[in-house]
């Protein structure tokens, strides 16, 4: 059923009790052309574009829990494309362009709100680095504006821009087209649109091993039985090492925990996304009114989906230092997700040494914004058995070939990216 003002009115007459399910929940078939492991945003977007752009609809998405119960449903939804290096810039900008049309394309409101993403600069060196990055972005056709202190103060009057502030603000780099989207809606909208094109979405079905014979993938063993597949795509984010190991692959990835927290809801007060790399902090306001905030990963390997208090204390301290007016807000919830941190801070999207097996992961703490772009290029890679122009650089073998993509120049330390 197409969602529209008419379907809304029609269903209002029956007290909204007769809406049909947004997607089917079929049993797995014995075989598919393509099986995607992982029903997060990336797996669902891949299946959607396989069906829509490449005419492949004998496709299953196999998810061990519920749709979007991984990082998709845990993330703080910042969408931006403000990268320095070319490979990242073009890939994330393509993704941002897909975001701009996603609600229309899916016939599902993903509530994409281009409220701007503002990075604060606290030192002259940081301001210089921002002007370099901003110029690189503009040369790549991406919107960027360098702001000085007074412009930042006018844009976000709640920020403490006084020279005596705990973290003095000298300026910032603004990407006006950046913003937020609604995380659950992204999973649901993609699932509904993929399902409508014939994709089977199979929840509560964990892949326990990958069958490989003579260097080619044959299918996956799951908690709901064996499923044969001509091609298999892995899109399991924090569990990348674990699932890739089922096919004998070792990855340059560590899994770390990233936390976020929300305050009690308040009336609209903050209309943009503010972040500070130096202070390790970011905040935005959700449509429900909560302030959504976070900072760094906890910094040690973890699959626990929960973190520890020092990060929470740091994040709240940074909030209050930057925005003194929030000092009496109460925090309501905190949670964590498992981040697939690559050792150069950039994702891996492409073929593997095993025929018919493809890998998409290493999203670090920033893969939500990549959701449509990742699905787009991963679907292309799987359907054509070769990378799309936009993911050619993100190969697994770049590490041995000396072509790492280290946007921040941090070196091979997962917890530093």
């Amino acid at each position, binding site marked *: 059923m197409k969602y529209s003002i008419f379907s809304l009115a029609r269903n209002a007459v029956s007290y909204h009790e007769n809406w049909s399910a947004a997607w089917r929940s079929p049993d797995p078939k014995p075989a598919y052309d393509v099986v995607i492991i992982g029903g997060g945003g990336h797996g669902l977007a891949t299946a959607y574009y396989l069906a829509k752009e490449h005419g492949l609809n004998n496709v299953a998405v196999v998810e061990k829990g519920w749709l979007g119960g991984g990082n998709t449903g845990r993330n703080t939804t910042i969408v931006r494309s403000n990268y320095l290096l070319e490979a990242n810039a073009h890939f994330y900008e393509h993704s941002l362009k897909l975001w701009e049309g996603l609600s229309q394309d899916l016939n599902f409101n993903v509530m994409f709100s281009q409220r701007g993403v503002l990075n604060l600069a606290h030192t002259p060196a940081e301001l210089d680095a921002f002007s370099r990055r901003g110029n690189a972005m503009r040369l790549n056709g991406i919107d960027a504006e360098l702001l000085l202190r007074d412009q930042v103060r006018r844009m976000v009057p709640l920020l403490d821009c006084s020279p005596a502030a705990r973290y003095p603000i000298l300026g910032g780099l603004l990407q006006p087209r950046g913003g937020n989207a609604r995380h659950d809606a992204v999973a649901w909208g993609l699932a509904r649109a993929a399902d409508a094109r014939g994709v089977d979405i199979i929840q509560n079905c964990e892949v326990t091993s990958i069958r490989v014979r003579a260097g080619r993938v044959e299918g996956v063993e799951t908690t709901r039985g064996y499923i044969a597949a001509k091609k298999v795509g892995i899109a399991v984010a924090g569990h990348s090492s674990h699932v890739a190991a089922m096919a004998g692959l070792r990855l340059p990835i*560590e*899994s770390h925990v990233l936390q976020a927290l929300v305050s009690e809801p308040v009336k609209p007060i903050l209309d943009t996304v503010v972040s500070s790399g130096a202070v390790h902090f970011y905040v935005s306001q959700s449509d429900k009114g909560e302030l959504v905030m976070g900072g760094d990963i906890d910094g*040690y390997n973890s699959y*626990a989906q929960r973190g*520890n208090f020092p990060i929470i204390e740091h994040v709240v301290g940074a909030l209050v230092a930057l925005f003194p007016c929030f000092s009496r807000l109460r925090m309501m919830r905190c949670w964590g997700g498992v981040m697939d941190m690559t*050792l150069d801070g950039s994702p891996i999207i492409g073929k593997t040494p095993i025929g018919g097996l493809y890998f998409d992961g290493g999203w670090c703490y920033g893969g939500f914004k990549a959701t449509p772009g990742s699905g787009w290029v991963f679907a292309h890679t799987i359907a054509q058995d070769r990378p799309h122009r936009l993911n050619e650089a993100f190969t697994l073998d770049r590490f*041995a070939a000396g072509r790492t993509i280290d946007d921040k120049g941090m070196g091979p330390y997962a*917890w530093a990216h």
Partner: protein
Amino acid sequence: MLLIICPWCGPRDQTEFTYGGDANVKRPANPDTLTDEAWANYVFIRENPRGAHAELWHHHASCRRWFKVRRNTMTHEILATAKLDEELPAGT
């Protein structure tokens, strides 16, 4: 909060420590003759288990020494610690 047991100072709050990652990474003895593949393995490939993980920590706020910890990555439980030249006791 992690309570990490430094082999020299005893149990201390996690905020006194810095993480150092996989404890089993060894610098190859023959870098001149190493293949690119083997070199990349050393620089970029890490153990990333669900469960017991052998890792390095640095006690930056006190004795400033590196040491080994076996920690469960599913529960964060500290299973064992040891000095760098000692064997880490097994644990799951």
